[in-house]
């Protein structure tokens, strides 16, 4: 079935008139891919910008079935439209967890692979794609082929992180992580400036999970003050999962609600509320997915939407460079209350995968003309530092910036050509970034 509607990414910007295809079986999926014209696969629509926007999009969420789960080895296979949340309901009670998880459980398996998402354990576990042992991909012809690090490896490394531009991921097999408890031992560390935060990451580099909330509005001696949250899977406790339906925000908040005063107040309160060296035992869900308790939190930014900026800058001179970047952001006064700092481990072999060794910073900007200017300036600074921005968050990057900062993009295009993806799989983002 097909129908037309207006779609957008999680940031509600940009919007696009789109024809939606909603296959619910392999056969209807095949028919949808063979239709004339180009399309892009779309799962939960949680990438922020326009990477799942196109004139024609193929909704994958009706193909959301489990295929195999070996409770003894943690080998797990499912259709790509299944959500991580759905996977957790089945695997956690049996003593398994996702080897890598992003900050929301409302993403599909296929989306997690196409974005090659990372989590709080990137410095140890790498990206989601590094735990995928096999992929079934539907090519432009409708043919389904298997790909892994051993088989059609070029397609595998292009598809993990490939933003859906190589084909439609039909199903995937991943190796899960064994756990003994569904609780996390969480430790909080307060760092009163950016240097102290980076040092704390370094000191705790063997912690399984580490991430910091960072106050992007603080200036002067408070610049970059952060609250680090470390985590380890607990050894004891029940294996249970409590999935509360999220509280929904039924309408767009007036965008004036989020202004520099409310954001400063929030950030200040958050900083002062955190307790240094506090240890807590918390359940998995609120630890990994704190924002999932509010459905549609994106509506808090008002109807105009927001932009998310996530960059990584190399470890060399990383601390000094992060100070420069934060100074720029604090001066702009436009950062939001959802800012995150993390130290990344080494890059992987996937052609368009985002993480590289260094520091990553992610924050939201309420959409305004000046926010776009700020973003352009930040992008320029990041490129000058040898860093880059994350395609899954991007809505505004220039083609030249992309090509300069993703050096394997030409190799990626060659793989697309080899497997017949050119002209078939494209998004608003891929067109903006100069893909054929």
């Amino acid at each position, binding site marked *: 079935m097909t*129908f037309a509607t207006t779609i957008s990414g999680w940031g509600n910007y940009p919007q696009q008139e789109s024809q939606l295809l*909603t296959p*619910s*079986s*392999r*056969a209807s999926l095949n028919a949808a891919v063979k239709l004339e014209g180009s399309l892009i696969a779309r799962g939960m629509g949680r990438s922020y910008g326009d990477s799942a926007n196109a004139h024609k999009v193929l*909704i994958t969420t009706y193909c959301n079935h489990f*295929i195999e789960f070996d409770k003894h080895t943690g080998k797990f296979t499912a259709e790509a439209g299944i959500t991580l949340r759905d996977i957790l309901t*089945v695997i956690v009670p049996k003593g398994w967890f996702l080897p890598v998880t992003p900050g929301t459980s409302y993403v599909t398996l296929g989306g997690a692979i196409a974005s090659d998402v990372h989590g709080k354990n990137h410095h140890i576990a790498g990206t989601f794609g590094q735990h995928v042992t096999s992929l079934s991909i539907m090519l432009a012809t409708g043919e389904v082929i298997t790909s892994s690090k051993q088989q059609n490896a070029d397609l595998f490394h292009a598809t993990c992180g490939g933003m859906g531009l190589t084909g439609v991921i039909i199903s995937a097999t991943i190796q899960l992580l064994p756990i003994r408890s569904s609780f996390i031992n969480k430790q909080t560390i307060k760092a009163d400036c950016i240097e102290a935060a980076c040092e704390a990451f370094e000191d705790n580099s063997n912690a399984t999970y580490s991430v910091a909330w960072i106050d992007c509005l603080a200036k002067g001696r408070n610049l970059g003050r952060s609250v680090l949250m470390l985590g380890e899977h607990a050894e004891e406790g029940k294996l249970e999962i409590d999935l509360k339906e999220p509280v929904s925000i039924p309408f767009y908040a007036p965008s004036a609600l989020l202004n520099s005063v409310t954001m400063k107040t929030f950030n200040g309160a958050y900083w002062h509320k955190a307790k240094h060296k506090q240890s807590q035992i918390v359940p998995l869900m609120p630890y990994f997915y704190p924002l999932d308790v509010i459905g549609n939190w994106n509506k808090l930014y008002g109807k105009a939407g927001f932009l998310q900026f996530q960059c990584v800058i190399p470890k060399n001179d990383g601390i000094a460079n992060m100070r420069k970047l934060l100074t720029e952001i604090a001066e702009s006064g436009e950062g939001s209350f959802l800012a995150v700092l993390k130290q990344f481990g080494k890059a992987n072999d996937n052609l368009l995968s985002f993480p590289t060794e260094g520091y990553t910073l992610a924050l939201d900007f309420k959409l305004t003309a000046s926010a776009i200017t700020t973003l352009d300036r930040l992008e320029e600074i990041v490129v000058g530092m040898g860093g880059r921005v994350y395609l899954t968050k991007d809505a505004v990057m220039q083609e030249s910036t992309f090509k300069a900062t993703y050096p394997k993009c030409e190799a990626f295009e060659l793989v697309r050509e080899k497997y017949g993806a050119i002209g078939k799989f494209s998004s608003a983002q891929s067109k903006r970034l100069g893909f054929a």
Partner: protein
Amino acid sequence: MKRVLIIGATSAIAEHCARIWAAGGDELYLAARNEAHLQTIATDLKVRGASSVVINCVDLNDMDRHIEVLDAAENAMGGVDIVLVAHGTLSNQKSCERSVEETLAEIQTNALSTVSLLTLIANRFEEERDGTICIISSVAGDRGRASNYVYGSAKAMVTAFTSGLRQRLYKSNVAVITIKPGFVDTPMTAEFKKGMLWAKPNAVAEKIVKAIDAKKSEVYVPSFWWAVMAVIKAIPHKVFDTLKL
């Protein structure tokens, strides 16, 4: 552990009900027309925890096969505790208006085949003096409207039929639960623009399974549809006939 027979098991609502039962470790018997789709669902339900899943590929419009399906389900599970009747099609009202044949085919699928199944199941459960029958009707059956009265009238028959059946089986300890879903976001309704009135199939399924456990009689899902339909039913004909609904 419950033994559940699901008729029309590939419908989105039925599938989500099955997922809830599977998570509880129940035994499932799935009947529907599309074999590949049934197989996909059966595999999924096993991973989700169903203690057994058997599929039966059958066109439910072929009423001669109804007895065979019921027998096979009883044999496979050693009896049946709950039957969920969920098969159906969402009629294309405009093309039904132009074709008697299509109209009657929709009535056949959405009403007559259901009546056939219900009669057979009711007689078995009545004899056993035990069992629960749950049937997916629709708010569309509450009052015929120009926009979908073919589908609506078929569902009206199902609602009236199950109302009577419930009375008849009351003394035999057999529960008959009529579910009236409102708008549900499924591939079948993909072409509609979704507003506040739309519910997700997993949320609808949760309410259905609860209604079955509580042996309710007639349930609007989500419940606010009771109020919506009360208003629609209360509109006097003089006004109703002029409306575009």
